[in-house]
């Protein structure tokens, strides 16, 4: 049994405070949904947990079984058992899924020769086309295929906790179901704890949460059982003002430069 404790987490982006003291505890096998209006800080929370450059932590801690993850570089957080399923999985030219997972296995002392078989099995479970496996990571994949790809990696890596950032965005119904089923299976098979960040209740029809939290203005303002999701379905976020916006340009404002290899004629 593992525990992920987020305590008083505060973070700024470009000098602006987005997270203002987030508290959350997730145990193995639990599914927690973090919902909230646009600009509440949902994506910031997922990026800060994984240590994405461009975000500055100004307070609090994130304890995985008592070990604070915040001082660790991203890859060590991953090795400690945290996984981030990204809203916009990034294309890495010339680098295949297998290469990446083999390096991750090697770095953690696992047997990298198992990777192809594990990848094959996971791809079959979520219906990810085998012919994508040798291609460049995320290159020329549809939104749904990218999320299946994220789920394959989650399945192979077998983390203790997964933060899923809008995993439902860009997914068709079939893909949403396949991805949700795989994640839900992991909660019982390997005791995966899940923090599913989403704007819509659609995901929670497939991935059944034990707890639902509302994030607003950088804080968890209310927490309840799955019935809260149904309530939000009918009332929306009206009770929680949408007065705090993500910085202009969304993720780009996190201090990341524009793609230096972007084709100027594209």
């Amino acid at each position, binding site marked *: 049994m593992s525990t992920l404790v987020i305590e008083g987490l505060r973070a700024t982006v470009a000098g602006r405070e987005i997270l203002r003291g987030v508290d959350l505890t997730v145990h193995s096998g639990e599914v927690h949904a973090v919902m909230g209006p646009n600009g509440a800080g949902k994506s910031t929370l997922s990026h800060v947990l994984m240590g994405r450059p461009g975000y500055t932590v100004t307070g609090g801690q994130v304890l995985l079984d008592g070990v604070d993850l915040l001082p660790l570089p991203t890859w060590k957080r991953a090795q400690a058992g945290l996984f981030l399923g990204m809203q916009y999985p990034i294309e890495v*030219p010339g680098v295949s899924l297998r290469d990446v997972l083999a390096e991750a296995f090697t770095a953690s002392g696992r047997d990298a020769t198992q990777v192809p078989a594990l990848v094959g099995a996971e791809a079959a479970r979520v219906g990810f086309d085998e012919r994508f496996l040798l291609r460049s990571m995320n290159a020329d994949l549809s939104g749904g295929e990218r999320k299946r790809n994220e789920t394959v990696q989650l399945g192979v890596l077998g983390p203790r906790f997964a933060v899923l950032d809008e995993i439902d965005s860009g997914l068709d119904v079939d893909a949403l179901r396949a991805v949700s089923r795989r994640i839900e299976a992991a909660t019982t098979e390997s005791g995966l704890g899940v923090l599913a960040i989403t704007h819509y209740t659609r995901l929670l029809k497939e991935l059944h949460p034990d707890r639902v939290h509302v994030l607003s203005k950088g804080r968890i303002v209310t927490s309840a059982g799955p019935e809260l999701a149904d309530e939000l379905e009918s009332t929306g976020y009206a009770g929680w003002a949408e007065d705090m916006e993500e910085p202009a340009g969304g993720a780009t404002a996190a201090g990341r430069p524009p793609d230096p290899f972007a084709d100027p004629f594209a």
Partner: protein
Amino acid sequence: MRGPSWLGALRSAAFERYSSSPLPTEAAEEWRYSRIAELDLDRYAPVTDAGPISSSETVSDPVLDAILSALPDAVAIEVGMDGTVAVTGHHPAVAVTDLAADNSPEAPIGAIAGEPDALVSLNLALAAAPLVVDVGRSSGAVPTVIVVHRVGTNGAAVFPRLLVRVARNADASIVEVLAGSDVESLVVPVTELQVDDAGRLAYVHVQMLGRRTWQIALQSSAVGRDATLTSAAISLGCDYARMRTDSALVAPGSTGKLLAVYFADGHQMHDLRTNQDHRAPQSTSDLYFKGVVANRSRSVYTGLIRVEKGARATNAFQTNRNLVLHEGAHADSVPNLEIEDNDVRCSHASAVGPIDADQLFYLESRGVPTEAAGRLIALGFLDEVLDRLPVPAIAAPLRLALAAKLDEAESIEASLVGVAEREVAG
């Protein structure tokens, strides 16, 4: 120098032209950004039996061995620095002619390349064993030829010369490898590629010379009606490595695909200059060059797409991307267009930048350590070109060579940083 009298006459005339024309300087547009001003020809001498320099040293290179074993059925031509030529293997469609052999027939060397500068004249004057490889039509597997030059003598000036002629409707794969040991020498290769109507030529130039060696290379091609040339330059070695690629599309329907992978570390410089010359309608050129610069190294890419008036319905593409691994390294990319016909489709793109922070974060978020993630990204970046290599069998050895370069760059960087820290501390 050995050779028939017609070649002797050609050499003397070329030497006359060399003597009466100045060496190129950086003032000429063709040599801007180059290191030509540092060239001191007096430090080198051709390798001859009678001369002060003898070719006694042997050069061995594990990547070269791997390339040779990847092409077991190739006709292999070993050219010694003194002009000895040893051919092993045989293919009924391949004819190898050493023009310096007694009674060799006359061949139109220089007809494609011309003599754009004095160093090309010098190559013709001093090429110890100008070679012609003729490839005719054959059935079955594509005839493959590998030409190997080993440069392992200090002070040697070496002038490889190769003319490849691919007959009408014929297919050919030619790999030319320049391997070397850690010697101070000058290598001036001139390669001419002629692809006759509907022929297909895959040509790969692999430069793995020693890191004190200079290369000043010219590759010149003429592609005929409905013919296709796919050429790739892999530039790894040398202190200064220049490669000029002139690709002329001389007949309707001709296609020239130009690829390059270059990797500079330490204080190396790679200097690539290209001309995509459209002289006929419905011709296509597609250039894709990618390079990595590490440590204190430099690269410069300068490319011109030229579309002559009347070369209508032409497609011309040019892409050059550079990855800068360390702050002390520098890459320049200078694309140019000269279009004299309206009916053309033309694009160029160039980029210079560090490893993408998003890509790095993505791989790290899977548990890949930062350094390993950077390696994957850098090798993947170059792999996009290797994936298109027209002789796929040698991609695997080249990947190993690139991985070794990356290791070398990391260890050089560690020592450079160490020196800098000691200086600060001192």
